[in-house]
């Protein structure tokens, strides 16, 4: 059978079993199939013949007219007052705030369809009413942003400001530690009166006043896939993060354990036991869990 006939028969749902097998062997089969599936996205909107008929034969049901003329001015005046007040109350200052608790995270969609994932123990605040004029948010903690294209998008933190036009980046603003990683596009970081442009795969770190520039090979933050990844980070930071990801508190003798020890590695957010092992074994420590208290000790 000719190729053209085969395709036409397929289009008319008229293929025999053997013909269908032959059709599937055509080079362009997957293209045809994809086109056929994609076409379904363009389906005409729902149409209800019954309802449409009713509005045709009995249009008066739809259009009820009453004489409001006498009252219209009064109604308008009242509406102006009520809506005006409502506007000032609700729209002028529509501050929204989200807080992800310890061992939790929140996925957010902003009014412009930008997306944010808020890591544990982090707070994000923005003004909903003002969003159209300025895409401006403040962050305390860590979040991953996938920004839709549009006007300038700014994330304010205590340590610095990050602004972009449309891109993907992670901001971590923890006490004494500020980190921005750009995964896509270009990000501008402003801190202490200095401004830095951060291209794709670049990392900016501000730790106790020192700036470190680094690169990343990842395409999204490790915590998105429920892991925390550290590269040459002081143990203190790792333990802080562990306390955010699990409902635990960590106890140790500071004279015995140096929390400035440098650690490189990652821990999972899904199993406390393996997470603790991932941290303690490389650093030659042991741990003991007692309910929500985890005690760390140096290996004798």
């Amino acid at each position, binding site marked *: 059978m000719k190729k053209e006939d085969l395709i036409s028969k397929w289009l008319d749902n008229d293929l025999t079993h053997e013909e269908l097998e032959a059709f599937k062997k055509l080079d362009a089969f997957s293209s045809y199939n994809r086109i056929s599936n994609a076409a379904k996205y363009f389906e005409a909107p729902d*149409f209800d013949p019954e309802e449409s008929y009713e509005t045709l034969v009995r249009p008066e049901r739809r259009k009820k007219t009453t004489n409001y003329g006498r009252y219209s001015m009064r109604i308008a005046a009242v509406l102006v007052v009520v809506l005006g007040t409502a506007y000032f109350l609700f729209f002028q200052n529509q501050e929204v705030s989200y807080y992800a608790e310890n061992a939790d995270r929140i996925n957010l969609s902003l009014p412009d369809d930008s997306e944010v994932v808020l890591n544990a123990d982090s707070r994000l605040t923005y003004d909903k009413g003002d969003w159209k004029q300025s895409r401006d948010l403040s962050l305390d903690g860590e979040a991953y942003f996938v920004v839709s294209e549009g006007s300038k998008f700014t994330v304010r933190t205590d340590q610095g400001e990050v602004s972009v036009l449309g891109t993907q980046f992670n901001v971590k603003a923890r006490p004494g530690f500020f980190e921005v990683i750009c995964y896509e596009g270009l990000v501008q970081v402003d801190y202490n009166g200095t401004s830095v442009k951060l291209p794709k795969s670049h990392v900016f770190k501000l730790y106790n006043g020192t700036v470190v520039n680094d690169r990343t090979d990842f395409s999204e933050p490790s915590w998105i896939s429920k892991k925390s990844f550290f590269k040459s980070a002081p143990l203190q930071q790792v333990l802080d993060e562990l306390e955010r990801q699990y409902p635990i508190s960590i106890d140790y003798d500071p004279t015995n354990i140096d929390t400035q020890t440098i650690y490189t590695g990652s821990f999972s957010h899904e199993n406390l036991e393996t997470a603790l092992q991932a941290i303690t074994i490389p650093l030659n420590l042991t741990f003991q869990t007692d309910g929500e208290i985890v005690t760390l000790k140096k290996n004798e």
Partner: protein
Amino acid sequence: MSKSLFKNVCDEQVFSQLYKKLSKDLHDFIYYKFGGHFNPEDKVQEAFLKLWNNCENVTPEKAKSYLFTVINNISLNDAKHKKVVLKFREKKVKTYTNENPEFLVEEKEYLKKFENALSKLTEGQRVAFLLNRVEGKRHKEIAEMLNISRKAVEKRIYTALEKLRQDLDEI
């Protein structure tokens, strides 16, 4: 309605039957031909009003082709120079269960290109193709709707498919 007891469509029963039977096809036909900004439902009602006003001269068997001709003419008068705007439908067609972001982005781009390619088809090709692929109509049914031969429908749909493939497989 191959044979009818009624001489014409002036009976309200006959008329409402026709409406319920044909209005969706008419609606879809106009939507696929001219796009969504066109208010297909208004055109459907207009066409039926014309039928009602002219009911004495139309037998029930002729009503279908009468309606398709009328709605086409009404819309053509309106459509001069307007470009087709088919909108993505809101509801998602679920074809895959696990969608990763790359897949979604790629799919979105594909649909953009698809929309573009659709608007480059001739009206006849687009209508026949979408009625067939989206509404699942057989070639014979489409031929009756459009009042053309089955062979012509087959040709239109096949050409539409090949054109789309050429447009979409590029790059």
